[in-house]
């Protein structure tokens, strides 16, 4: 991978008094699949629109392959964009929609070939003469994807491409987008607020909050070594507990699946009272309130996931005392506790 193929340098954007983006620094490698992840209003869509050229940054620059494109209008960037609403032209057929951006670039015969190719690619050959309203949501999404890919863009921008679909279709299209990315290898940047989507699809995730980039890393890095409590809480479930050494202000965090439940009657490890017990199919989720050294309730809660088959050997009931350990290799420490999740 070629580092720094697409670089965003010191971007900032304000809308009136509202700061939408600040201090945005990001290097994206060629052929990379990047997810911009964050709660609504964090600025991720604004960032995508600045990349597309649909919005102008107040400061900073966008460079692709060594060429500064900061002031280049959208049409000249050769970026394909897929919109959240798909923005398919409702009065044009599937083929006409796909051919829409090709008219200035290719001859008639070339356009026909290209449309044919794209239809084949997204498996919509038999729907070519239908208008968008005659297609299902998933099919519309594929048309939008084909339209954005048709002119072989240098970069593909996806704005919450799956948010309008229901869960089953979403999973299928997730694979489809990955497959197309694999096949074409175009640099892809996708905006999403769905952490699962980001974890499964991205090469690297860019976590954003309150107009800033908080952390950039592979899904594994972001999940296992979150830089701030916000990232830890936003991606996956996590419990925060205060360090039991009184001298420290640090915050400890642990994912529910890493907590080890101990057998009945164990006096070692941490003690807690079961406050909630949920059956989730593959596992049980327990929320326990911690008990301090002197047996007082600490009003701190730990979430514990126990695989369903392992529950047989435990006897867990609400308001019952349980014991568990926090394996040190899975405990994450935060020295700065100011930045907790809001989303």
């Amino acid at each position: 991978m070629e580092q720094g193929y697409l670089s965003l340098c010191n971007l900032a954007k304000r809308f009136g008094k509202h700061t939408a983006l600040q201090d945005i620094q990001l290097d994206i490698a060629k052929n990379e699949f990047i997810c911009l992840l964050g709660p609504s209003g964090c600025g991720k869509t604004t960032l995508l629109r600045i990349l597309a050229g649909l919005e102008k940054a107040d400061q900073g620059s966008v460079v692709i392959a060594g060429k500064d494109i900061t002031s280049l209008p959208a049409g000249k960037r050769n970026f394909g964009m897929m919109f959240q609403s798909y923005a398919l032209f409702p009065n044009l057929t599937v083929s006409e929609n796909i051919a829409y951006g090709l008219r200035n670039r290719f001859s008639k015969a070339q356009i026909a070939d290209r449309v044919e190719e794209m239809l084949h690619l997204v498996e919509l050959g038999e729907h070519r003469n239908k208008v968008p309203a005659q297609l299902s949501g998933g099919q519309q999404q594929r048309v939008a994807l084909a339209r954005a890919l048709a002119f072989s863009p240098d970069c593909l921008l996806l704005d919450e491409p799956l948010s309008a679909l229901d869960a089953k279709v979403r999973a299928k299209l997730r694979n489809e987008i990955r497959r197309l990315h694999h096949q074409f290898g175009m640099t892809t940047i996708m905006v999403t607020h769905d952490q699962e989507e980001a974890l499964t699809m991205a090469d690297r995730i860019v976590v954003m909050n309150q107009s800033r980039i908080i952390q950039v890393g592979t899904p594994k890095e972001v999940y296992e070594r979150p830089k701030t409590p916000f990232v830890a809480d936003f991606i996956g479930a996590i419990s925060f507990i205060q360090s039991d050494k009184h001298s420290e202000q640090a915050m400890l965090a642990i994912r529910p699946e890493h907590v080890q439940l101990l057998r009945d009657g164990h006096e070692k490890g941490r003690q807690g009272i079961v406050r909630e017990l949920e059956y989730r199919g593959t596992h049980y989720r327990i929320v326990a309130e911690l008990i301090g050294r002197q047996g007082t309730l600490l009003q701190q809660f730990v979430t514990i996931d126990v695989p369903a088959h392992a529950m047989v050997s435990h006897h867990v009931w609400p308001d019952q005392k349980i014991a568990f350990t926090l394996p040190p290799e899975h405990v994450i420490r935060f020295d700065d506790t100011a930045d907790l999740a809001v989303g």
Partner: protein
Amino acid sequence: MDTWLKRIRPDANQWSQNAIIVCMTIALLFAILLPLGELVIKAVTDQDGNFIGLMHFANYFSTPALVMSLWNSIKVSTVTTIIAVTLGFGFAYALERSAIRSKWFYRSVALLPLFAPSMLHGLALTYLFGNQGLISTGFFGLLPEFRMELYGPIGIVMAEVLYTFPQAFLMLSVALASADYRMYEAAETLGASKWRIFWTVTVPGTRFALISAIFVCFVLTFTDFGAPKVVGGQYNVLATDLYKQVIGQQNMQMGAAVGVLLLIPAVISFVIDRISQRKQSGWLSAKSTPYRIERNKLRDGLFYVLCSAVSAVIISIILVAIYGSLVKVWPYNLSISFTHYEDFLDEEGPFVTSLLIAFATALIGTVATFLFAYLIEKSRGHRLLRQSAYFLSMLPLALPGLVLGLIYVFFFNNPNQPLHGIYGTIWIVILCNIVHFYSVSFLTMTSGLKKLDSEFEAASESMNVPWYRTLLRVTVPLSLPTILEVFLYYFINSMVTVSAIIFLYAPDLKPAAVAIVNKEDSGDIAQAAAMSTLIIVANLLVRTAIMWMAGKIQKRTDALLVRTKE
């Protein structure tokens, strides 16, 4: 050439859009703001152009006859507003919230007066209650006589109620149609009585429409010229005063002062309407459930009587006018003939002129309105530019037709004016009509455009397709129903309007509505009625044709815009 242009102007899309907005803003500036400035200047200067402050107004208020007309205008407008809004609310409530049958029929009848010039109501009233009227003479002696003083406030109020009722009805029925039934269910479960629900849910839900309707009716009456001209008799009102000052005595300065007085309620109404528009939004959410009408025999019976009575009055008014136009010599020779319609269909006649003006207004107006609404709503042109263009587009709402005509005389009838050339031609009438009906068309167009996906433009931009191609290939086809609706609005209103163009028409190119005023002036009531009938017929024909077309297109567009959910 093309690529060369693109090289010097990399952002040709935005550049060309901005250029068009600038051109159109300048056009609006010349068509609205500068003439309006001329009015204000005229109102505070004397004949030689010296500043004299509020002298004209002082003069005005020290002339008892003139103060009298102001009072008369206020009285007549207030009474008309009360009657028209009450009837309009009742009628709208009946159609939206009761279970009476044949609602489509009542709706069409209620809107019928919109297709007639406002003089028609006055003419019909003359045929009914005038000295030789059908009712005054008891159907020529068949029944006991019924005489009343038609010419004066009574006649004006009757004619104005007929004129303003459809407007009040339309505004209130829109408000009553959009209710959230969950609020009614909530009120019912909380044990509120029907009466209490009406006052705590129904009325607050429509209060902005109600306020707007009250102001619109008041302003329409306050500034209407047609009805007082025909049935006003010796009862002077502001609008007829203005006509006399400007056309009769050529006293432009005093005319300007009266024009400013006419403007005051219109401007207040404009401001209130803008405020209520802003507050109205947010009353309904996407989750609202539509109102469900339950059966209630007593309520439906009462509304049935109300709707039938109002409809009967409207239909008979129009039928009487048509009958009057067909009778040979009222009341002496009641045989039917078409003599009064002769030479109306001449190539040079007023009716053909009117058709020409209406078609030109509709055609040019629709194109201009669409382009402007599109650029303001959808383009990424300069924000300040778009905002000022939007403001200028709203301004004509505050200008009554009479004032508009007046300021056009002031502005264009000035030999030093570069645009002086269009004065006295058909073009100034067309321009005046376009400006007169521009704001409502603009709002219709804007709300139509808002329904389209806001990302179409961004999508085509990211594919490097010029904006005008997407406009022609996608936006125009999808907006066709709205475009036709706006075309129809321009056409019908250009056919019936008289207030603005009475100052502007060229003697050899007299529009039909002006011809009605002139005929009535010279006592040719039957010919005036005949001309009114022709206008109604033409409007109804054009409307039927366009609605038929729009309906077909609408069905197709609706099918395209369905959102599929999985």
